[in-house]
């Protein structure tokens, strides 16, 4: 038995410690918003937050995730998440949509760490892949989210990590 802290709840799963977190989420806990894309941390479709940081759950083992606070797209909450989700919908980013929860998780993590960042600074930290090539809309959406979180538009350079 491994105990995982997921979306604020304690969940127990019967799994080998070297099971990728992605599959524990999808198969054992039925949290299918986290997607399988490559299995090698190359595409970001499986991005979740572990203690607030964006991590690729296909390459994190449940044994290493135990005891840490894990957030999936289903458990995303707070004003940063709302700003990013609203921005994604306003910019109508998704096409096939399969990679998009991963993008939303990645951008939310970057802005959650510091909401006073320029659009370009946020974008430079996003390495997820989208096969539909929704990148123009992603840039627009990140711009919306940045403007929403920092209406003065005066990024505080000191606080950029």
């Amino acid at each position, binding site marked *: 038995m491994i105990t995982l802290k997921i979306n604020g709840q304690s969940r127990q799963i019967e*799994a080998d410690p070297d099971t990728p977190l992605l599959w524990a989420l999808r198969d054992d806990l039925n949290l299918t918003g986290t997607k399988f894309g490559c299995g090698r941390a190359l595409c970001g479709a499986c991005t979740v937050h572990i203690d607030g940081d964006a991590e690729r759950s296909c390459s994190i083992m449940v044994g290493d995730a135990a005891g840490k606070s894990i957030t999936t797209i289903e458990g995303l909450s707070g004003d940063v998440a709302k700003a990013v989700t609203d921005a994604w919908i306003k910019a109508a980013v998704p*096409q096939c949509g399969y990679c998009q929860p991963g993008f939303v998780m990645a951008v939310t993590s970057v802005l959650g760490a510091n909401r006073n960042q320029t659009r370009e600074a946020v*974008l430079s930290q996003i390495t997820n892949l989208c096969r539909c*090539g929704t990148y123009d809309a992603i840039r627009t959406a990140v711009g919306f989210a940045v403007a929403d979180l920092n209406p003065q538009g005066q990024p505080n350079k000191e606080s950029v990590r």
Partner: protein
Amino acid sequence: MTAARIARRTFLIAAGVVGGGLLVGTGALVARLHGIGGYRLPAGEGEASFGAWIKLARDGTIEVAVPHQEMGQGIYSLAVLLAAEGLRLPADAVRAVQAPINPYFANPIMVIDGLPFNEHASGLVQESAKWTVDKVIRAFGLSATGGSTSTRHIAEPIRACAASALDVLTRAAAEKFGVAAGELKIADGRISTADGRSAAYAELADAASRLSPRTIELPPLAEGVFVGKGMPRVDVPPKTRGVAAYGIDTRQPGQLYAAIRHSPRLGGVFKSASLPADLPGVRGIVEGGDYVAVVATSYSKAVAGLEKSTVVWDDSYALSVSSKDVFAAYRAALDKGASYKPRWVIDSAGDAAAAKGREVAATYDAPFLAHATMEPMNATALVTDGGVKVWAGHQSGYLAKLRVAAAAGVPTDAVEVFTPYLGGGFGRRADLDYIVKAVEIARKFKSTPVQTIWSRAEDLRDDVYRPAAMADVTAKLGDDGLPSGLTYRIAVPSTTDQFTARAIPGAKGGLLPDRSTVDGAVFSFYGLQNRSIENFSVDAGIPVGYWRSVGHSLNNFFFETFIDELSATAGIDPFDYRARLLDANGGEAAQRAKAVLTRLARFNADNKVTVASGAKAGRGVALSECFHSFVGQLADIEVVAGNIRVKRVFAVVDCGFAIDPPNVIAQLRSAINFGLSAALYGKVEIDNGKIVPENFDTYQILTLEDAPEIVVEIANSGAAIGGIGEIGTPGIAPAVGNAIFAATGKRLRSLPFDLG
């Protein structure tokens, strides 16, 4: 089949709604079904059907049936948009649902588009062939999503069905209130009298659905509340929040998971496997023809089981072909010239060989490509004594039922196919071997649903690839610098022959020329009086399939690069050169292409190419006609230390009329980036029958960082609606290649681009 044919004939006689396009033009024989008369959506208790496309659901929502799969092209939203417009409803009062798999929803357009005729010419032969194909495809009931046909297929019938539904609702209201229909007001799903009496559609629906439809002349598509303006896509919120369900998200009670592995070499077959005993959660191993699968209680346990198994493959019949052998075969075929067989001359005029003038000759090539949909191949199947249920993203419900029935040995009526969202299609999910394999695996676990998932490596290895190709193009330039003769010869296998053989057991290809092999080079909008456009069909045994824009992705690159080479040789500006060639044709297609080119030229004049210090920069132009739409692209590129960076793309699109402009722009951007992945990185190397790339590190796709800014301008010509989903893909490679030439003077004739 007989019943379907009779129903359709009855329908044609009973058809009440006439589309404007049906009354005029050559499209009349391409029968348009308007969803009243022949087939009606089944309506249960508390529901009311208004024909084949629209019904009122129990919760009061209008449902519009979509016989196409939603794979990112936005067809669910387009259906909602048109139904809401026609029924004068707000967008949230309508939802899209998958249409039943029924012959009524057959899609003949993509097959008609594949006929080896000039679609701009009209004659008895063409019209008879279209008529015949239309009949045959409808008789079979072949439903399919592809060839950029979704909107072309369903827009008019949905508009007609909505108009008919509104008509019967209004008549029902007139009857209920005892007033003339013309005195009623319609707004927000209610029909009201001047004196304040009012009824919701839901209250009128039952009576309305019993009224006989009348003949209504449908006005031509024009800007309305949503039409020509757009509507927020219905699938955007669920996809953003991670609640949209894809095939891989299927969860059935007691479901097992299978991890699949294929023979490392193409053509290799399964020989033997040993699975260690007592692996946790592992339920068994399934031996397939060219694969093996381990089934377990979770996918990770299935993967672990597969990794711990020893599998032996029989390579007696494995291909020992490498990419270089394929290109050598192409070279040999082209060198053989006119005596090579099978060779098809698909478009010719005058005498290209006899033309005189300065000769320009070039050879181009492009590699095999994978689809690499973000959602890897997968399917969930439940096989019981009563039949088979399948949950999977696919691009043809009809073929899925056919293939599953054959694989499970049950009648097609015993097969149910459930279609969630597709995590990308691009043509990959038109080929249904992955569903067949999932059914074969599930058959071994009767009455238990089994989900089979391809790892990324398996997804890349078990693809049907965009074929590699090679083309020899020669022209003679007359005194005016324009080609007095042009010969275009492409060596490439026939995707359609291979697809047909896989899709329909026992079907034999090779009887007809495959137009898709030369799409993008045939029936050009340029004036080429002496021309010969030829396909040298060379099949080296590598499985090939439909890949976004199909033959256009090859031929538009070869052809538009060659046109650029001709303009450079003639010393004429590339915009001016193309304009002269279009004028030399002068037909409708040339005029549409010219209108697009004129906008590109204006943008070019207004926006200079900027060059950063230490960089070389250039702009390239390309024109495409693809699935009845016209696209022009300008690519601005920069070369720094040998690296090509595409900074900005300006595209103009004429798809006739943009029903949903924001989505037209989104689709163009998507298709351009898809083509750019191929132009800059895309290559599936084959080594001794092995597919080399295994993941996104060795099969690179475009990243956010490298994606250009793409500006799209819509130029409605008012012509019949053309395709949208694929049409941006072909033109980006030639635009970028021509820009590289402008920047460096180097002509790159091989994809992906490499400045060495």
